[in-house]
């Protein structure tokens, strides 16, 4: 339906889970949430076509969207969780170090902050080697990437989420999952999708450091302070794993996952002749 549905190859993953073509997933009849947020699942100014159905990861965005006057929600669980089911590990690898995610900008907004101070804090905090994940918008900026390479971190990027069905790295989440499974800890300077993915993949989480600012950030949903009020258990350098896992299950919508056949029905992925 909307090209955002293809971001990070999410529709591709769901299509594969549903037993359909991974490379050319069928059109999804509605909007698929493509990242965790503290609002209704989409950015505050996202436009929806009339009567659109919205497929959220979990129930909380549905409730918030309902309050915004929106209807036609169905929560399905994050595609990342489905990917975990599809890509089960034959044997777990020994985990080491921290996969650190810098709060990333996007094609329309760059981040600004004190990278050196963040590096110092990471060095003070992380006990093992650090792999630093940058979204390509930062990865392609030598002045940003250089900070972390010069600090001795291994710097990785999982590719592009794509735009208008172009340049979508369909294996974006595959690569992210693979890296997460190799690390003991996952950390970020903001509570974000990657932290929840990390916890889901078995990492110990940490959220600390300069949260940095992004151009054009819309504080409509309450911003960082609301995150601190709602999910204090997810913030800090040492977090209770059990509490984090419980919150992660809720935020990624684990209980809302459904069998492949049901997913095909829900997405209208069945041709009627």
């Amino acid at each position, binding site marked *: 339906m909307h090209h955002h549905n293809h971001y990070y190859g999410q529709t591709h993953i769901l299509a594969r889970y549903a037993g359909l073509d991974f490379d050319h997933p*069928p059109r999804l009849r509605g909007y698929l949430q493509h990242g965790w947020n503290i609002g209704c699942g989409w950015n505050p100014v996202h436009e929806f076509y009339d009567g659109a159905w919205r497929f959220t990861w979990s129930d909380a965005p549905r409730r918030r969207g309902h309050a915004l006057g929106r209807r*036609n*929600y169905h929560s399905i669980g994050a595609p990342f969780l489905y990917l975990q089911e599809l890509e089960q590990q034959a044997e777990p690898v020994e985990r080491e170090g921290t996969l650190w995610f810098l709060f990333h900008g996007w094609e329309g907004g760059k981040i600004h902050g004190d990278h050196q101070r963040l590096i110092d804090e990471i060095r003070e905090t992380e006990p093992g080697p650090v792999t630093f994940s940058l979204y390509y918008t930062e990865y392609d900026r030598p002045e940003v990437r250089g900070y972390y390479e010069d600090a001795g971190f291994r710097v990785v990027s999982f590719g592009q989420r794509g735009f*208008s069905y172009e340049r979508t790295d369909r294996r974006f989440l595959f690569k992210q999952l693979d890296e997460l499974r190799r690390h003991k800890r996952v950390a970020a300077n903001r509570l974000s999708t990657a932290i929840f993915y990390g916890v889901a993949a078995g990492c110990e989480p940490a959220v600390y450091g300069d949260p940095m600012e992004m151009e054009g950030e819309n504080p409509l949903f309450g911003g960082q302070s609301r995150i601190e009020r709602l999910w204090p258990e997810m913030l800090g350098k040492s977090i209770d794993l059990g509490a984090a896992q419980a919150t992660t299950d809720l935020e990624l919508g684990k209980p809302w996952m*459904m*069998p492949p056949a049901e997913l095909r*029905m829900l997405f209208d992925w069945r*041709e*009627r002749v």
Partner: protein
Amino acid sequence: MSDLQVVLGEMQPWTDSTDHRPALAALLADALPSERRTLIVGPHSRPLISAVLDRAADTTVLVRSVSDAEELAAEFGDRLQVVAGALDGLQAEPFQVVVAADGLDRVLGYDSGDLSWTERLQTLTALAAPDAVVVLALQNEFSLLNLLDSRPADQRHGDDEWRPLHDDPTRPVSVDQFASALPWTAQLYADFGSRAFVAAEVAAAARPGELPTRLAVDALDAADVPVLSPIADGVDSAARAGLLSAIPTGWIAICGMHAEHDLYAQTGPSVLTADKTPTGWQTSITGGTSPADGLLFDPPVVPAKVPDGTSVESALIRLAAAEDVPAFRKLAARLGEWAADSPVVLRWDDVVIDGESFAHGVSPWVTEEPTDSADLLAAAWYRFHDRLIGQHRRHPWPPWMVGDDLVSTWMSMSGIELPEPVQATSPDTPPASAGHVARGKELAAALAGVLETREHAAADVRTALADAERARQELFELRGHVFGLERTLGFRNKAMKTRENRIRELRTQLQKVTADHNRIRGSRTYALSRVVFHAAQIRKPRVVARKVARRVRKR
């Protein structure tokens, strides 16, 4: 044929219609003492009169219609003393039993005085001995059916309202008012459409989804009254407020005796009785096995004990409204396991949540032939589907799933497999559960038929409006869908154009490279370079020189 006595106030020509009310007959059979001098006041059905006659010693019936009186006299002969006339026209010694189970609205003629309900009660009281057993009915002007009646006041009542009866200010309109108005101590029953009678205190304690509430909904749903909105919603709201006893179609007062059971309900051709116990209901049901519309009425399958608790349907509706699909799925899975050996045609509105498990309610309907449990499960889900969607209840499933797909989905939640994956571009194959769904649909339709509920009647006004709104919404959403499709096509088209432009660019680059290549190959420099290249490859220059010289000589 007995002698027909005619007293003041008789009507001719006139007739009062009566309906057989088996549940009321069972209630009277329990309540009336035997071998007493009895007066039946007002029109009553033949089976009801027979039930009274079976117990009474000497029975008189008073009806206002002469023709009705003649028919009764002809039918019952000497067993029944028939009087034609109005209540205030009858002069007789007080009776030991007075039965006015039709109430006091059809006991006066057009020549009678304008007696209020209270005055009619006083007249009736005068005909009862001081220690008489009196059975008196009263229509409830505050009944839910009245409140939801879509007809205006001037169209609700028929030819017998030559004087308005229902706006009589002396007429009781609540349990308390009725009890206070009676000169006797009474046991009151809430009368739901003459199909279910529930002891007033039991009705007041009933909550949504519990047995009395469920039976009240079924009974009122069978009433032939055009309504503004679904009856079930109102009944459930009243039950939540503890007001189920306040909204029946009427009440029956049993004065001077006590009926045996807390609840009497018509079910199929029989009557179910039930008594409240600390943990639920002790039930019994009369009648034998009999076929009806493809199903079998089989009283022995009704459990003697039905646990207290709400229905599965109530729980499912709440979960669907909360859009809590995970909890809905869990409940459906548990139902699938539990229903594997169901003896009856399943209906979630008659399955009770019993702790961690479930229990059958009081439905006695089974299939004539042994039926696959998956078919019974499908029947339950289909009935639930019709009630959830038909009543416009809130739920989280998109419109394209509504129908067989949604039933199949719920069945898969209950453990019945869904179809194998099929490419969206390939023709669809029938779901593995399609056969079960189709059979379930048939069973659900057969069940609705024998239950005689409103599901077969015209939609209420609210539902009709909601249906129209749903159609408008569907159109609105389909337009949005078309817009979305066009936009997707636009995105894809854009992507195609991007690729097309890239191909054009590559072609242009190829042409340029080819032209450059050809130009280079045609130049003297290239030719010289080739000669030099070949000359460089000569390993034996003398041999080559001799061959070249030989060719030159030949020319």
